[in-house]
Each structure stands twice: as C-alpha cells, then as structure tokens.
C-alpha cells in the first residue's frame, strides 16, 4: 500500500492541497485548480540523446507522455537504460508510466532525465521499479525544467531480499516540482542508498520527498540530501524512514543539509524516523545555514575574490552528494551538469 497519495492528472480532485500532510509544503492545488488540457503529440528531438548520451545504453523515451518505444523493461545481466522524459508542451499536461524490473542478479543502471523544452506545462511521471533478489539498480535523475513548469515525479521502488538500490536525484527545480520516491524493503538484507541535490535560483521550487519502509530484518538505508537556495528559491525536503515491527537489525541514516544564500530563500525540512522494532540503529541530521564566513575570509586572504570563494565553497558543499555516485561515467556527467548550472 502506498503511503503517499497517487495523482491522476485527468482528475483535479486527486490534486493534493497543503491540507494533505505529505504535501503541506507543496500545495499542488494552489498551482493547479483544474485538470490541464492534454498535451499534443510531439516528435522526439532529432538532435542529441540527452545529457547521458555519451554513456550509451538503451533509450526509453517519452515525449509529452507518449512512449516513443517500449514503456516496460525487464533487465537481466548488466544493462544501462536511458529513461528520457521529454516535455515539449506549452501550457498543457501529460502523464507517463514506466515499468522497469531488474531480475535476480541483474545489474541495471537507469539514467533518467527530465528534459523540459516547452513552457508552463504540467508533467506527471510515474515509475514502477522492482529490484529482485540480489539485483543491483542504480537510478540517477537529472531534472532540467523551465521555471514556469509544474512537474511531479512519483517512483515506487520495491527491493527484494539482498537487493541493492542506489538513487541520486539532482535538480534545478521548476515553478512547482515534486520528486517523490517511495522505497519498500521487502526482504532481509536489502541495501538502499538514496541521495538528493537541489540548486535553486529565481523563484524556483523543488520538493524532494521520500518514504523508506523497512518491512524485513537487516536492511540498510543511507540517505544524504543537500541543497543550495538563492534569490527567492524554495527547497523542500521530507524524508520518512519507517522501521516496521520485526525489522530488527535495520541500519538507517538520513541527513539533509542546506545553504540559504539570500534573504528571500526558503528551505522547509521534515525528517522523520518512525521505529516499531527494538534492535535498530537509526540516526538523522538536519542543518540549514549560510556559507562559513571564516572559510570565506580564509579563501579571500589567499587571493580568491569573494565571488570565486563563494562558488568554490558552494560547489564543495554540494559535490559530496555527487561523489557518492559509484558509477564513474555517470558521476562525471552529473558533476559537469551541476557545475555548469551553479
């Protein structure tokens, strides 16, 4: 059962308002009162295969909600899939559902890009992901959307015994952007790392919400989210880890750290640990602050102009999340993608 409400873009009554606890910082109904008109079909851009093109793999693309090829994939062996969610719409809405499963022992790399080329669109992207026994799935998300878009991504991930799931979501936000992940540890010894990064300028907003449910023993979850907010940007982090009765030996760690570099910037953070088992190790840390003034002066004293010192410190702060990506090729693409946007 899902802990987070499921949205149907065709049905405005399914849009949560801030009165729904899980959406209290991202009032979808305030931004979207009616179901948007459906987006027209559009051709896949002829030029470029997205930010991860250089890493190869099979493309799995959606344009304005329509699958260009398959919308379901079952991976075995070692595989890379480039999941491209392309929006070329103007003030219309579209929804996608992709289903991916990694079979036992498979090693799958999902390179997911939210490529916003239109304006004022409403996108709703769902992902159903199953990680089988002893499979390893890495999902890396780069969200690059226009400042007037509304974009909701809802991923449901189920990790079987001994399965490994690695996720890194990196975003520059949108008018209202929700990147939601719900992970269920279904069996013993599942291992999850789930990270996030947001860098917001202008009036952009990004909401990284996750629920990790430990239903079996000896599972591990390590979560690190970092963000930087400038201008009137607004970052939201909601992380919930549930340790169910019987999920003994769980090791769960969650950290969220944000920098606010402007007067009007805002960060809302809500870390939650809900523990019903006795023998567990859980920890969470949450900090929101500004750049270290002592470090800024030290760097200037050695010759770095203030702007350069700020940029270097900001990048250094965020890059910890990127450094946790194990796949070297993907890590370098994300690093370049991010530094080009800081």
């Amino acid at each position, binding site marked *: 059962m899902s802990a987070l409400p499921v949205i149907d873009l065709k049905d405005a009554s399914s849009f949560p308002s801030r009165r729904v606890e899980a959406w209290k910082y991202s009032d979808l109904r305030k931004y979207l009162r009616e179901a948007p008109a459906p987006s027209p079909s559009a051709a896949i851009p002829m030029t470029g295969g997205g930010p991860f093109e250089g890493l190869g793999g099979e493309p799995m693309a959606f344009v304005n909600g329509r699958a260009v090829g398959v919308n379901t994939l079952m991976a075995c062996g070692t595989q890379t899939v480039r999941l491209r969610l392309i929006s070329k719409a103007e003030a219309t809405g579209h929804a996608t559902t992709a289903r991916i499963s990694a079979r036992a022992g498979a090693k799958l790399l999902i390179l997911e890009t939210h490529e916003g080329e239109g304006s004022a669109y409403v996108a709703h992207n769902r992902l159903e992901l199953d990680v089988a026994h002893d499979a390893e799935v890495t999902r890396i998300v780069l969200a690059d959307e226009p400042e007037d878009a509304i974009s909701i991504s809802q991923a449901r991930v189920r990790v079987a015994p001994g399965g490994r799931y690695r996720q890194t979501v990196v975003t520059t936000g949108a008018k209202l952007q929700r990147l939601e992940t719900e992970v269920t540890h279904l069996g013993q010894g599942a291992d999850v790392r789930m990270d996030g990064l947001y860098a917001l300028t202008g009036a952009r907003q990004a909401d990284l919400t996750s629920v990790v449910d430990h239903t079996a023993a000896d599972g591990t979850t390590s979560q690190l989210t970092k963000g930087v907010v400038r201008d009137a940007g607004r970052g939201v982090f909601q992380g919930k880890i549930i340790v169910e009765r019987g999920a003994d030996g769980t090791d769960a760690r969650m950290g969220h750290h944000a920098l606010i570099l402007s007067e009007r910037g805002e960060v809302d953070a809500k870390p939650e640990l809900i523990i019903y088992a006795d023998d567990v190790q859980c920890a969470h840390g949450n900090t929101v602050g500004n750049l*270290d*003034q*002592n*470090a800024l*002066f*030290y*760097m*200037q*004293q*050695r*010759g*770095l*102009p*203030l702007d*350069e*010192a700020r940029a*270097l*410190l900001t*990048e*250094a*702060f965020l*890059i*910890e999340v990127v450094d946790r990506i194990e796949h070297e090729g993907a890590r370098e693409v994300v690093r370049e993608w991010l530094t080009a946007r800081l």
Partner: protein
Amino acid sequence: MGPRDKPEGDGFQVSRFNRVLKINNLHVSVGDKPILKGLSLDVPAGEVHAVMGPNGAGKSTLGYALSGRPGYEAAEGAVAWKGEDLLALEPAERAAKGVFLSFQYPIEIPGVPALTFVRTALNAQRRARGEEEVSAPNFLKLVKAASEKLRMDFDMLKRPLNVGFSGGEKKRMEILQMALLEPSLLILDETDSGLDIDALRIVADGVNAMRSPERAMLVITHYQRLLDYIKPDRVHVLVAGRIVASGGPELAHQLEADGYDQYLPAAA
C-alpha cells in the same frame, strides 16, 4: 651600506621609502570594543619584526586588520605597503599585492582538496597581477619540491584542505602555501601554537627560507620561544592596542624573564 642607503635626491630614497610596511595611528574596534588604539609601526622590506604582547592586547586583530577581515575595518589611521594604501583594498586584492596572513587556527575547507585550493589561489593572484596562470604540471612540480622541504606527505595534499589535519600539519600547510604563493609581506599569527619542537623547527626553517631583501615579515607571538628559531631584527611590545616599547632581539628575552606587567600601567 647597500645601494639603497644612498643619500637623498638620486631616486633611491623614494624606492626605499616605498618598500616599507607603514602602519600609522591605526584604530580598530571589534563590535563596539576598541582594540587597536593608535598603533604605529614601520617594517622595512628585508627585516623581520616581532610583535609581542599579552592575551587581549590586539595581536590577532592587527593581523586581521592588515589582511582585511570583515569586522576589523580601521576606524582611523593608515596602512601602506610599498606605497599602496592597503585599507582601500579587498582582502583578495591585498593578497595579490603580496599580503599573506598565516592563521593561528587555519580553517578547514571541506570538499576542496588542498592542491586544488592552492592552485586556484595562486592563479587568482596571478590573474589579478596580469600574470600568466601556472599550468597543472608545472604547479605539481612546484608543490612536490615545496612539500619535500617541509617533510609533508604529498598524498595529504589530495585531501580536503586542513580537514582532519593535526595542529602541526595545519601549520605546515600554511607554510607550504606561503612558499608557493611567494608573498612579499608575511604576517605570522602565533605560528608556534600547537607545535611540538620538531614541527616548530621545520616550520621555522620554512619561514627562514622566505627571508629576502624583498620581503617584510611581522611575527606575532605571545611567547619568546618562536623567536629562538625565527630571529627578529626588531621587537615591539603591544599592550592594550598600542606599541609601548621597541628594541632589538634582547627585548624578547627581557619580556620572557620579566613578563608584560611592567608595561601595563603605561598603557592604562
């Protein structure tokens, strides 16, 4: 008598005048509290001057005011290095003019490898001076040579700057940066604090290697111990925000024996 000491009128006098750190009647308050209250001091290039004083005399404030730390702006007075008004410059501009403050407590910079940091700083300074940047391979050669002299493990320089470094390692890192940035005005703030005797010797060797007719050095210290290793040409006593006495190296030994008490009424 060097060529710079030729009599007035032939141009050398002016250049000699220019190669001096001149601090004149410097007043600095931190918050509402006056710390420096009319400090005056001249340090010519080629000389090492020690500033000694008890806790709270304003020693660290002097280092911060000279290097331009926000919150340590001068309310009154003037500071010139080589004829340039330092107080009108941003901290990074002062660094590019050769000002280097070795911190009493060097700052940790998580996420920025020491090598990256020093190269970025060096090239920023060079850009500000209109000089060509140093290429990565050339920089590595410079760092390898400098780190061997300071007996530093090169691999340590790949780690984030000062993060997890011991007190001694941090001080060596300061001296390494000094050797690579080649500043002309060196301000050492309590450089001996946290050093054991072996580390102190290595650090002092590093500082002494920087002595040159082109450089002025200001060694700020509470204790005389450091001055056994970095021998000053002049010693100044800083008490309650002013220089209350100046003399030769023997003054440091006298202070070590008698303490600062005799100067306290003079400043009150």
